[in-house]
Every structure is written in C-alpha cells, then in structure tokens.
C-alpha cells in the first residue's frame, strides 16, 4: 500500500476508535448547536412569576388580570394584601408585584387618570427590564381595548407608578454578572480540575507509586480535595478582586455570608469531579466528560443570565445542579444584602448535596483504586 494511503487509513481507523475524539469533533459541536438554539431560538419570550394585588376588585380589574394571564408571558399569583405579595417578592417567589389600587375602575369610567403600582425585583436587571416593558405595553393596549369596548373617551392612558427600592437597588449587568462569574471556578477549578488531577495519575501510571506507598487512598483523595479547594479559592479571589477594581460594582461584600456558600459550592464541584473521574472508563473519557459537563452546566446555573431565560425543561435541569443554588445565594448576598441568617435554605441544600455526592465519590474512588 502507498505510504500516504497507509497513513490515512491508519489515522481514520484511530479516529473512529477514539471515543473522545469523536465526541469533541462531532458530538460536542452538535450539542452546542442544540443548546444555543434552545436558549436563543425560542419562539415565545420567557415566562416569569408575578404577583397581583387586586385592591379594586371590580369587573375591569378582573378583566385586566384575565387579559394579563392570557398573554402567556406571566404566571400570575393573586395575593390578598400587599404585604403578603411583597414578602413573596423578597423571597424571589415572584419577580414583580402589580397592585391595582382601589378606585381603578372608577377612575377609568370618570375619565380620571388611572394608575397601577409596580414593584419589580431589580436584582435580575434583564428580567426586571423585560417585565417593566411588557407590563407598560400591556396596560397601554388594555386602555385602548377598554376605549374600543365602551366607545368612551379616555384622555389619559393608564400610568404605571413604580414603587422604589422594594427589592434592592436598581443594578446593571456588571453587578448581575459578578456573582455569576464567581461561580465559574466552582465548575472549572473545582469540578474539571479535580477530575483532571485524579485521571492524570491514572493516565500516567503514577498512581502505582502512590499505591505502593503506605499512604491510605483516602489521604490521597483528601489531598487532592484540598488542592482543588485552594485552586478554587485563589481563582475566585482573582475574579473578585479584578471584578471589584475593573467593574467597580455596587455589591455587598459580606465575607461571612459569601465564604460558606463558595466553600460548599466548591465541595459540590469537587465531588462531581470525583464522580466523573471514577465513572469514566478511561482517563481521556473522564477528562473529556468533565470539561463537557462544565461547559454545558455553565449555561444552566444562572451564571450569565437568569434561569427564566431558559425554556422550562432546561430550567428543571438547572434546578438539580448545586451550582445554581450557589449562584442564587451569591446574588442574594451581593445584590440583595441577605445575611448569613437568610441563607439557611441554600446552605442546607448545598451541604446535603455535597455530603451525598462526596460520599458516593469516596465509595467509587475506593473501588476504582482497588480495581486499578
């Protein structure tokens, strides 16, 4: 056989026998294409939960609520009173609260300027902007609709009066993205790096020397965990310092609240990396899988944009990833001034998932070491 053809045949065979190569050259671009299509190619806009307090309680206000519900943009939750609705807003159960004040219908029928009150969660600036725009547009159209229906003249459109500083200050994308970027190391310094550190030993055979020494396998694992924690801490510190100096964001740097969240998020990342490295049949497969999972998960954890941007099924994926809770908790601290006391729920969630994932990782790691 001609040497050129021989080399070509050999390379083609090797290509199709190397699963990692096939994945990175074929499957990964396809995956990214599908993912981006899902995120940015949606036919309908995002949906958001909003709360409505109908203090007017008239047919017109009921019609407004019904029409708003009919848009399909909002999942509407009705509240009996305003304080209940604002509590839900503060707990991020809803993204905005619309209050239809008493006398709304009366003002409309008397041709007096009518208004609705709007309180928006400003910690998601893009979501807040979208909600604000949609609600303004809706009430403008609703006003026109009422005019056509009653054939009356309404000189003043319905005005939207925003209630200030209900949930944090109005922030920009730089404030929004910084906590997200501080979560990036949880995936790539903790998860991907810990996978890499473990599979390297396997790939290079250096695990043999370690196993021939008296050191217990768990000590090796703990050493690697510590290294990954330090790597993550350093990376987060660099991102935070650079972010603070370059972006000059108006965020709350509550170290006592941020530290446990970042530590637990990192432990979750390390545990995931450990699982992947033990499940992977070969070092290359484990390393590739970890990198891919890291790349994919960064879009599902609310790091770069709110989860609400995603279709519901992708939001569901995001909700099973521990880093999503870490990202949300970081934003709660940095943008909403939530203190450590207010973080009990995410801390419990992150602790539980870290313990479960790390425990399973230890079991798999021990089996894997014995098998090696």
């Amino acid at each position, binding site marked *: 056989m001609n040497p050129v053809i021989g080399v070509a045949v050999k390379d083609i065979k090797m290509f199709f026998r190397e699963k990692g190569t096939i994945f990175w050259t074929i499957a990964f671009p396809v995956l990214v294409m599908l993912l981006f299509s899902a995120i940015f190619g949606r036919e309908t806009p995002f949906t958001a939960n909003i709360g409505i307090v109908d203090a007017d309680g008239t047919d017109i206000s009921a019609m407004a609520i019904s029409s708003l519900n009919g848009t399909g943009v909002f999942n509407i939750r009705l509240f009996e009173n305003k304080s209940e609705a604002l509590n839900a807003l503060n707990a991020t159960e809803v993204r905005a609260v619309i209050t239809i004040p008493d006398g709304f219908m009366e003002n409309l029928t008397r041709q007096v300027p009518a208004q609705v009150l709007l309180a928006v969660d400003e910690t998601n600036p893009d979501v807040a902007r979208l909600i604000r725009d949609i609600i303004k547009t809706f009430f403008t159209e609703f006003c026109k609709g009422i005019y056509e229906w009653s054939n009356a003249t309404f000189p003043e459109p319905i005005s939207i009066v925003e209630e200030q500083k209900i949930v944090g200050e109005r922030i920009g994308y730089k404030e929004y993205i910084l906590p997200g970027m501080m979560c990036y190391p949880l995936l790539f310094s903790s998860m991907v790096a810990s996978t890499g550190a473990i599979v390297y030993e396997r790939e*290079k*055979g*250096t695990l*043999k*020397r*370690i*196993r*021939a*020494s*008296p*050191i*217990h396998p768990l000590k090796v694992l703990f050493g690697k965990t510590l290294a990954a924690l330090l790597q993550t801490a350093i990376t987060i510190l660099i991102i935070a310092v650079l972010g603070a100096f370059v972006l000059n964001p108006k965020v709350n740097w509550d170290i006592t609240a941020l530290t446990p969240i970042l530590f637990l998020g990192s432990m979750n990342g390390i545990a995931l990396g450990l699982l992947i490295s033990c499940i992977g049949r070969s070092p290359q497969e484990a390393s590739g899988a970890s990198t891919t999972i890291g790349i994919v998960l960064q879009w599902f954890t609310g790091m770069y944009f709110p989860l609400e941007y995603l279709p519901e099924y992708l939001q569901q994926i995001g909700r099973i990833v521990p880093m999503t809770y870490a990202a949300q908790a970081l934003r709660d601290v940095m943008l909403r001034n939530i203190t450590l006391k207010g973080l009990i729920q995410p801390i419990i969630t992150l602790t539980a998932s870290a313990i479960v994932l790390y425990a399973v990782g230890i079991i798999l790691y021990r089996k894997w070491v014995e098998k090696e």
Partner: protein
Amino acid sequence: MIVEKSFETNLRADEPLADEVIIEINGLVKHYGEVKALDKVSLNVRKGEIFGLLGPNGAGKTTLIEILCGLRSFDKGEVTILGLDLAKNSQKIRSLIGFCPQETLLYDLLNVYENLSFAASLYSMPSKKFKERLEVTSKVLGIEEFIKKKAKELSGGMKRRANLAASIIHDPPIVILDEPTTGFDPNVKREFWETIRTLKHNEKTVLLSTHDMYEADALCDRVAIMDKGQIVAIDKPHVLKEKFGGKSSICIRVKEDQTEKALKLLKPYGYTFREEEIQIFTENPWKLMPEISNTLLGNNVLTEKIEVLEPTLEDVFIRLTGRRLLEES
C-alpha cells in the same frame, strides 16, 4: 560514570548466603479469572543479596512483584517480609519496600527535586530527613547534575535513575525493581547495573525481575527461573549453569579448504560439526584449548576462530522448559 567505584558483582561459588531471610514466600497462588498467574510459588530472598526473577513475559514475574508491593491480592499461600505477614501488615510492609516499576513514574512538569519531595511525602518523611536522604540518594545514584531539571527534559537513563531515586528516597531495606533496564541500550544498561550494585553496597536487599539472561547472570547473586507461573529452578547463576546448562565447549572455525584435515585431526576429541563450525564438548575447556590449538597449528591448519563457549542461563531455561527464553520474550 555515575558512581565513583564499582563493586563485586555476584557471590562467588563458595561464598555463603546470609542467614537472615528477608522475603519468604510459600505456596503463593494467584488467578486472573481462569488463568493461573502464579502456581504454588515458593522462594526465599536473603539479606543483602540481589535476587533475580528470570523468565519470559507472562511468566508471572510482575504479578509476584506487585503482590509483594501490596498492589495485588493473592488467592493462597503465605508471604512474610522482614518477619511481617503480608496479608496482615500490608501498609507497614509498603513502608519497608522501595518499588521501582518498569515505567517511569515521574511527573513531567515537576523537576527531579520536586518529584523526590513528593515521593518522600508519601512516606510522611520530615523535611530534615528528606534533605539528608536527598543528599545520600543523589550521590549514590548520581542525580545531582539534573536535580533541578523537569522530568520531561531528562534523557531515558536520567529518568530511570530519578525514578529509582524516588523509589528509595525513604531508605527502604528492600528494593524491588520490575524489569529495570527494559528498553535501554547496552551502555545505559551496564551503567544502570552499576547503579543497582550500589544499592547492594548500601546494604539493600534487591529483588528484580528480568527477561534478560545476561542481566540476571551479571547482576544477580541468585536467580529464580520462572515459567508459566511456576518457579522451575532457584540458585546462584553459575550453579544453575553447572546443573542444567550442559557441558562447556570449544568452538573452532578453520579455513574452508582445511576443514576436512581439521576434522581428521580432532576426531580423537569427539566433535559435532554444524554450520562450518567444529564444536568439542568438554568439562575443562580452558585446559583443553591450548592442546587443540597446538594440534591444529602443528599440522599447518590455520584457525579463523577458536573460543570457549560456556553454558548460559538461556541454556538452563531451554533445558528446564524446552523453549528459548528470548523467543518467549
């Protein structure tokens, strides 16, 4: 030259073995599924000797070594190392062994010093002791010149020495080497043999596996010949050759037109003639060679070659297994 002086190689024929048994193996059995990798292996390694496991690939050498180093479990038998039962004291025993596998287990991005430091940390070695051991090990193995070089920048021979240094940095009484010179060119191989001899000089007991009969012959005080998971013979190399290697011989080649005349002259000695060479088997080849040489020269037969062929461990292996060692390798 990596060491300042070379040392006595094998034990002499009459030199006694040390009394103290360092490694004692009795009836060791290991299966990989249906395949019996070790079949009732029994042997003793004595203090201060270089003990060789000689056999082709698949003979069970690496399996045996990995069991001794605690890297593999075994199915049956008893292994005692420095008086400790391997089955019960695996972790303790690992600290007494310096294992140097066939492959170079260095971290490419670390320099030699950092690699040794990591190896020392596996044995919880204090930094002061590490510095002391580093000094000794560097001198013994001649790694000072490249101690600050990254592993990926080292030559093959340097890597092997650094690898060995990492294996003995904790000053173990036993050093186990798995195929230590595989892939070396002859010069590097001989250089590494000297390195191994320095270990013996430094009062280490060395157990090594090899499929190189010359290595086993040149380096080992005693050799266990392994085949298909069994020990087929154990003794000093020259004893094995005496027992199983057959007689020595004198091999003669003369000018082609004088072959017939030479064969007539050498008939009284008894010979075999094959591939233009006359071979005379004898118990005392060195005594007989001058006589044969004089006989041929006295009758104007010019020799192109006359040499003594002594039995090798290859001959021993053939005699014991019916197969060639190198072919199997």
